[in-house]
């Protein structure tokens, strides 16, 4: 939106609430990367920091919702402004959930740090987390620049994250079958992988919101679904 409102206070209010989204997004990006790093480096202190930081993310969500409600009540936003307020509320919800997943990863990190490491798993998870963090960064960029193409690209990339989750699901299953002593660790690692996969879905939802914000239409075309783990029974031999 290039043009400004006749009421400059209205402009500032809309900018403020969007600035809070960006701040929240930044905190969530950090939380994802820190959670994955703490897992890989068995860094319990960093994991504790991730858990503490989540409070700030939750507070921002509250604040954004209050501001959005106030904007609706006092400004009766229409058209693009209305879509801005609606998407701000949804995106803050998505970010809050992502923050919770990062916090959950950090909790499991504390448990996993006490166990024998499972080879390769944590670096795979870190790569997956990085992919999601990059998706989030691009989704937030597409939001700021109202860039539908970039948002569309983010939606497609969620397929890659699903593929990574698939592969890990099979890997953990194999480990657990090989040695039952791996079960506790692998269960935690699997939940972490699932958390990251869910984060990817939330990023996709943010990208959907960007498309709605710009075009007024919710994207309808089916995006590639690559999480097939719901249909897995036992791993194939050989």
């Amino acid at each position: 939106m290039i043009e400004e409102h006749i009421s400059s206070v209205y402009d500032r209010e809309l900018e403020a609430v969007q600035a809070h989204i960006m701040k929240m997004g930044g905190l969530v990006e950090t939380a994802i990367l820190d959670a994955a790093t703490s897992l890989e480096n068995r860094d319990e202190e960093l994991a504790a920091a991730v858990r503490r930081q989540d409070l700030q993310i939750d507070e921002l969500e509250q604040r954004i919702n209050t501001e959005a409600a106030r904007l609706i009540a006092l400004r009766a936003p229409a058209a693009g402004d209305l879509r801005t307020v609606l998407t701000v509320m949804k995106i803050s919800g998505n970010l809050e959930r992502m923050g919770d997943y990062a916090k959950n990863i950090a909790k499991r990190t504390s448990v996993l740090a006490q166990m024998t490491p499972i080879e390769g798993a944590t670096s795979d998870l870190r790569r997956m987390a990085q992919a999601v963090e990059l998706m989030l960064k691009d989704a937030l960029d597409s939001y700021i620049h109202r860039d539908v193409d970039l948002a569309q690209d983010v939606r497609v990339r969620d397929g890659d994250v699903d593929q990574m989750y698939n592969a890990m699901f099979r890997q953990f299953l194999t480990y657990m079958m090989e040695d039952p002593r791996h079960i506790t660790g692998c269960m935690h690692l699997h939940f972490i992988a699932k958390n990251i996969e869910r984060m990817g879905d939330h990023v996709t939802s943010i990208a959907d919101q960007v498309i709605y914000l710009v075009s007024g239409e919710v994207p309808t075309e089916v995006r590639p679904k690559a999480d097939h783990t719901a249909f897995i029974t036992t791993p194939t031999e050989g």
Partner: protein
Amino acid sequence: MNDMRIVERDVDTQAIKFDCENVQVYYGDNHAIKDVNVRIESNTVTAFIGPSGCGKSTFLRCLNRMNDTIDICRVEGKLSLDGENIYDRKVDPVQLRAKVGMVFQKPNPFPKSIYDNIAYGPRIHGLVDSKADLDMVVERSLRRGAIWDEVKDRLHAPGTGLSGGQQQRLCIARAVATEPEVLLMDEPCSALDPIATAQVEELIEELRTNFSVIIVTHSMQQAARVSQRTAFFHLGELVEFGKTGDIFTNPKDPRTESYITGRIG
């Protein structure tokens, strides 16, 4: 779409009341309305919005030939009501205005009794045969104007003694007394307080069952609340016309978006 609140906004008729094609209006050399094409549906509330001087009131006044009274005003193009060109030479503007009633910004009751305010139209148009008939028309009109209960005990008190909101509802009752098909409203609530405004808006929704209502309003929220169709005028052009829900959530023209979101008019 089973949600009642959405269903209420549905228009259940395809019938076209006013069909306007290539309408041009000139005030002397000033080209006030530029090539407007619009179809107003029956039993629908249509809101005309736009900044001051955009031509919405001018266009509204074309619909019952109120512009005839302005010497330098010239109207071109086709404006037909139920298929009949209202600018045809054989159309009597007085008869037309009985079919296309009008309510103005400021309540303007005649300096007569409440009863006579309503009875005036049916009398001059010869719509009633007897006093009993007339009584019936007066009561029915006042009921339709949602003001009957407030005035039934003082029908012979002067209309000018009512409050602003009551006067405006009296004017609406007066406009519907001649059984019009279309009701034009030019800023009907701008002189009213919020309660009276809400009453008039509620009344507009009820009137829709019998009439087409066309309302000019500066309050975008009012347009959003009462209408099923919205037309946005800018600099004499009809920029966008469509379902009110679409216009206020996802307008197609950037000028509409700018206007309804409070940017540049």
